[in-house]
């Protein structure tokens, strides 16, 4: 990171000194590309303008502005699936608001997260700390939980609409706050927002569509029932356009020639037929941008000095590793004996229609196979088979059917297979040097 910073300042000096059309060594260009694009994909850098959420953006800006400027208390929930850009929307709104002087000078912000503030006691301490109330010295909050609550409520009650500074409460992972005891924090925040006290705005972010059903009746009555839904009605051409803008370099890149070449390469990449197929597959699977960023990040990591462009083959590879089936991959790493046991379990599942099985049953099934083949190649002793069975259990390819595992002996403990049949068959096809008789046994029980 330090190196990058050095480089960056160095580049700036360079660009000041020279004309705009400076040529940088290819290595530095590639470093810059990585720096800029990684910021976009991994650090969720805010784009200059959000696309497709103009109405929601305007609603939220107006709402928060009224709190900051007119001192009107409000509460709102932003609801949308994971990766739909809820936090990005809020950050962009706050960035826009910070340009209004009245807002910038007045608005106090308190950010809470349901994953960090797991109960009201911690949340309350965090609120008092972020508000710099009087019982805070340095970073420590004094007083018991009850005193903290009384103190905070007193502070908010003393305030009034026209004189005290408005406070913005952002509750990330809002649904987790609804699981706190009695929902005390939510009740109090909403109650303040519905009574003539210090002006506050409560903004909750959640991915659960049924979040209102989690609230208690009195809490729900105090909530203003404003919900901003972030449900993308994105079409495929827009998705591809998004890929292109995400990969394109900005105009203020130091090397003009490199930018033109790179952006042209990205444009041709997006028109490529095979790339379109890959993107359509991802688009069909999910519309959220986080998985798209993951895909593009995998492509970007292949860009180097030796290969300074993204090729369609990169995207295909990246997509393959994104879509790979995890359990089928695990099957490739098993020994032949373990694979035999899995095939035996598959047959047991077929015959007994998904009833749980134990080691003895699996071993019997395996023995039947051995007898038919009269092949002593796989003739293992019982302890070895037991070991293999336990290994499968450790990999969680099989799981105990009931949790009372300690009581029964291991040989007779009932287990369930955690694999789908299609996964087993596919893994057998791809297994390196799989014996033919195994494959035959897998396809039919009477090989």
């Amino acid at each position, binding site marked *: 990171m330090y190196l990058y910073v050095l480089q960056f300042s160095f580049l700036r000096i360079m660009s000041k000194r020279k004309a705009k059309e400076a040529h940088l060594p290819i290595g530095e260009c590639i470093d810059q590309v990585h720096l800029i694009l990684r910021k976009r994909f991994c650090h969720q850098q805010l784009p200059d303008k959000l696309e497709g959420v103009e109405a929601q953006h305007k609603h939220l800006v107006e709402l928060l502005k009224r709190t900051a400027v007119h*001192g009107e208390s409000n509460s709102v929930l932003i609801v949308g699936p*994971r990766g739909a850009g809820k936090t990005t929307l809020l950050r962009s709104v706050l960035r826009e608001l910070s340009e209004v002087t009245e807002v910038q000078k007045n608005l106090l912000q308190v950010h809470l997260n349901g994953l960090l503030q797991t109960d009201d006691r911690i949340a309350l301490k965090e609120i008092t700390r972020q508000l710099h*109330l009087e*019982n805070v010295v340095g970073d420590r909050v004094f*007083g018991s939980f009850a005193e903290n609550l009384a103190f905070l409520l007193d*502070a908010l009650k003393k305030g009034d609409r026209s004189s005290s500074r408005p406070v913005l409460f952002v509750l990330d992972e809002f649904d987790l706050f609804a699981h706190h005891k009695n929902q005390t924090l939510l009740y109090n925040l909403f109650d303040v927002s519905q009574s003539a006290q210090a002006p506050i705005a409560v903004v909750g972010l959640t991915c659960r569509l049924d979040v209102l059903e989690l609230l208690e009746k009195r809490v729900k*009555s105090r909530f203003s029932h404003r919900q901003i839904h972030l449900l993308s009605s994105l079409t495929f051409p827009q998705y591809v356009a998004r890929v292109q803008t995400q990969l394109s370099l900005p105009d203020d890149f130091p090397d003009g020639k490199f930018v033109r070449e790179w952006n042209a390469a990205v444009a041709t990449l997006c028109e490529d037929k095979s790339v379109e197929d890959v993107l359509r597959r991802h688009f069909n699977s999910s519309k*959220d941008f986080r998985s798209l960023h993951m895909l593009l990040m995998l492509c970007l990591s292949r860009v180097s000095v030796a290969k300074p462009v993204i090729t369609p083959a990169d995207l295909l590879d990246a997509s393959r590793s994104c879509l790979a089936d995890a359990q089928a991959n695990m099957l490739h790493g098993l020994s032949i004996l373990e694979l035999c046991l899995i095939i035996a379990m598959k047959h047991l599942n077929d015959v007994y229609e998904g009833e749980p099985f134990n080691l003895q049953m699996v071993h019997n099934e395996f023995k039947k196979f051995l007898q038919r083949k009269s092949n002593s190649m796989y003739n293992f002793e019982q302890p070895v088979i037991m070991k293999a069975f336990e290994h499968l259990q450790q990999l969680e390819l099989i799981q105990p059917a009931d949790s009372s595992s300690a009581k029964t002996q291991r040989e007779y403990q009932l287990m369930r297979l955690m694999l789908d049949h299609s996964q087993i068959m596919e893994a057998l096809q791809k297994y390196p040097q799989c014996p033919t008789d195994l494959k035959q046994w897998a396809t039919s029980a009477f090989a």
Partner: protein
Amino acid sequence: TPRHATPSIPNRAQPTRRPANVLEEARTRLHVSSVPESLPCREQEFQDIYSFVESKILDGTGGCMYISGVPGTGKTATVHEVMRCLQHAAAADEIPAFLFVEINGMKMTDPHQAYVQILQKLTGQKATADHAAALLEKRFSSPALRKETTVLLVDELDLLWTRKQNVMYNLFDWPTRRHARLVVLTIANTMDLPERIMINRVASRLGLTRMSFQPYTFKQLQQIITSRLNKVKAFEEDALQLVSRKVAALSGDARRCLDICRRATEICEHSAADPSAAGLVGMVHVMEALNEMFSSAYITAIKCASTQEQLFLRAVIAEFRRLGLEEATFQQVLVQHQALCRVEGLQPVSVSEGLAVCRRLGACRLLLLEPSRLGVLQRIRLNVSQDDVLFALKAD
């Protein structure tokens, strides 16, 4: 903590703006926090509570009253109104002076904190819960020469429930003491709370003075809005009637009614080309606000889901139909899903991908899932009705 800290929020650097036009003025008046001078539609309840408290103050005796009603029907506001009137009367020397103390079950961390808060509000003294209970006990049971009546308002009474119910017992037992001169007004949501959660000796001390607040009818809601607007002409008559009828049909919650009206003024302001010349709030705006607040997002969410997610929902329903149950394992659904993929001409999904799709639907609660460590054996249920899913999938 500093001994005499004065909790406060810092003052504004820049003053608030005044409402610039009619709609903004209306919005300020419609905000739930701006309590009006008089509460319309609760005259009878106001009168009852007023005469109850007044008679106790005049007689110098004590008593309890239990007030119930669903949220947003004006219970707390009415009691506050009564207290304000009584304090005016006391200031005018029509009745003896009295003390008013208010606690709220939701605003304390533990039921025993009630003692601490009552003591602090009565005397300004800080004490632990046990000590405060002892001090209050002494105060209410010992005779004193000059003693004024105390009116104690306990909001959200059900939160004060403890296993032994000693907090509730004390609260209702103090008024029965000879020298206490304590009037306790309790507020909760459910009508049968004393019968349901209180043991006999607590319920008996609470007594039978009860009052229930009925949900507002549409005429009352309309009157509430009109009185709040107080001659500010911002709404069409029909629009107001629509809001009040809708809310009265659903819950009769005045808070909801005011919130919808406020949202409608915003919509009106945004839809007008020139914000300063926005006209009256009409039917269209109110309809939009009602839709925003009452419609469920499930159907839109299904419509906006990706192709595979929609196919998965279809597969879930297909599997339910096949089984005749409302529950299926992921493995069973996956078979249907892959068949559907082939029908649609898409590449069949792998198990990992299918699980990811399933988890995404589970995260936004369109599906109800078992913990994901059960893998392909986890059971799936729908959180929406099948008809809703089919409607959403068919519409496009």
